[in-house]
């Protein structure tokens, strides 16, 4: 058992290495030195305490989105709509933040609660059709992303624009802020929420019968059905929870970092979270590590744009290459397995 895990882990590391090598070649192709890019990334991510706090700040939404993706993946559902849930959650939290005035603390919790509801509500329709009619959730959640982003832009610019501002809502009241941890950074308690969530979800999967049922549906749906799990209802609930956590990510981002909703406020965090979860093989605790990795890449890429001629999207390329080589590696091991048409991401 342990050696299996160790082998999978070392395979994962090798795959990341291969991807970084390919990434280095691409960096050479765009006319930059890979060593310089790497050093700039490292300096941008861990250069001093502010940079490290910046890395953790970027890690927070990726981690929460990653946990959202993990919940889906464990239950055999690809929630590719985390990006959209993040945007709607972010807007919902901002709306509570600037519309109502409540006592400190309660205000923040109310905003986060509405963010969670917004995320879950947004995924409810794809989840319903997936559970009832087996409508492919990958496509429906991807398409709903585009609608969510445009819809929040519409809300922001046409309905709730800050007077005199451009494409942003009024600022939220200070009673709804997520408190900051250090004085020198916007790093806030959202990170703690993310860490607790990751550990909590991992514990639920490990120690509760519900969590066991979810994992069972994800890995062997027929077996789960014979074992008495209501597979359809479980799929619905899993997607709903995944969307709820996606919405929470948006709420945390709004209340902790921006303190208002802006058009395009958190681009790509949802996808980064999904990639982090895939790289972590659907394990919420391992997602902490992969989210930190991607957070560091993202934070380092900010300096990349300043100090080198490479664009910061080069890290997107590296992320994609990592996932591609990991997906190939997982299956090199299984090449001897049966030809049967099953092709599901294995855990």
């Amino acid at each position: 058992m342990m050696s299996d895990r160790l082998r999978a882990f070392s395979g994962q590391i090798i795959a990341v290495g291969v991807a970084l090598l390919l990434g280095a070649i691409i960096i050479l192709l765009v006319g930059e030195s890979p060593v310089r890019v790497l050093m700039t990334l490292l300096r941008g991510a861990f250069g001093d305490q502010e940079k490290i706090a910046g890395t953790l700040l970027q890690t927070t939404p990726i981690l929460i989105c990653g946990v959202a993706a993990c919940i889906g993946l464990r239950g055999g559902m690809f929630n590719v709509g985390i990006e959209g849930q993040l945007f709607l959650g972010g807007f919902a939290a901002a709306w509570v933040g600037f519309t109502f005035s409540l006592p400190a603390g309660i205000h923040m919790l109310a905003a986060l609660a509405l963010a969670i509801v917004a995320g879950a509500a947004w995924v409810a329709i794809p989840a319903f059709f997936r559970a009832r009619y087996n409508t492919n959730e990958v496509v429906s959640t991807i398409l709903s992303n585009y609608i969510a982003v445009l819809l929040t832009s519409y809300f922001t610019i046409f309905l709730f624009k800050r007077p005199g501002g451009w494409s942003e809502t009024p600022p939220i009241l200070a009673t709804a802020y997520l408190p900051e941890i250090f004085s020198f950074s916007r790093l806030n308690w959202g990170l703690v929420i993310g860490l607790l969530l990751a550990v909590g979800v991992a514990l639920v999967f490990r120690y509760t019968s519900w969590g066991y049922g979810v994992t069972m549906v994800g890995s062997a749906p027929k077996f789960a059905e014979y074992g008495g799990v209501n597979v359809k209802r479980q799929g619905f609930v899993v997607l709903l929870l995944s969307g709820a956590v996606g919405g929470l990510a948006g709420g945390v981002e709004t209340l902790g970092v921006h303190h208002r909703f802006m058009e395009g406020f958190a681009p790509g965090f949802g996808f980064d979270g999904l990639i982090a979860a895939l790289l972590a093989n659907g394990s919420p605790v391992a997602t902490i590590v992969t989210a930190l990795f991607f957070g560091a890449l993202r934070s380092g890429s900010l300096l990349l744009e300043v100090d080198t001629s490479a664009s910061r999207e080069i890290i997107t390329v590296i992320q994609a290459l990592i996932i591609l080589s990991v997906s190939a590696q997982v299956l090199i091991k299984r090449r001897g397995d049966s030809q049967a048409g099953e092709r599901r991401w294995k855990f």
Partner: protein
Amino acid sequence: MEILDKLINVALIAATLRTTAPILLVALGGSFTTKAGIFNIGLEGQMLAGAFFAVIGSIWTGSAFAGMACGVAAALAFALAFAVLVVTFRANEVVVGLALNILAGGMTISLMKAIFGTRGSIVGHGIVGLPKVQIPGAQALLGSWAPLVSGFTPIVYVAFIAVPLLVLFYNRTRLGLYIRVVGEKPEAAEALGISITRVRYIASLLCGLLAGLAGAHLSLGYITMFTENMSSGRGFMAVAILIFSNGDPLKVLAGCLLFGFADAFSLRLQTFGFPSYLVLTVPYVVALTALFALSYRARPKIIKETLASMQKLLSVDRNSSPVDKNPQ
């Protein structure tokens, strides 16, 4: 009424044909992989790569058609990567497809920055757009209806001609039949000695070919520029169409015309002062609605049985059974 006249006219139909072409091409490309039993969510990335390299090729060679060839080559490279990972390594097709889409997005932006030093879009730089084909005699014969058949770029004609060709391909050629067998009954294909691997590779590459053409149409035909993520979900809409059409070319055409119309109509609505953000959601909403409304294949048993019995009652009048799915 006057507003309706302004909204719906020959120009709108012509615009519909123009907006239908890219999504039709990419969806027809996807029909190869769908028929071969591969769920190809990577269409979006292939299309984007095609659009970007078509512009690059057009700038470097000064020829629109050489640019188109470059775009197709790039899309083929993505399709080949997809096939290697999915068919040979049997990696998860959703993961690979999504990763290739992300790769295409990041790569095009990075290369744009490296080559042109700009972000956002490539305009000018000597991009040569595809010529518009004027069909001789169209103006004389059809008068004001001429824009419906004449004045499109060649790729638009290719897209619409491809529909009947694909119908013939699936029903009348050996390769078409092989692709369908591999998709529907891989065991039967194996028993017949058909190489599943080879057929799936061919299907993936054919898909890349059409996706590349679709991309080239976006950046050289529809408008003459490249912008970040300019495929803007058309590849995903194509996948939605493929899911409910099961890759049948005629149904694909019907679905694509619906989206092309939604696209053209929403552009039209924008000029009438509707909030652009809401108008822009129209194609996606249409895609989702169609996907949900038509996901009947797995309707609950009771509805399916009721419909089946009703069909039986109705078909008593007819002589032949209406469905003959497997010609083999």
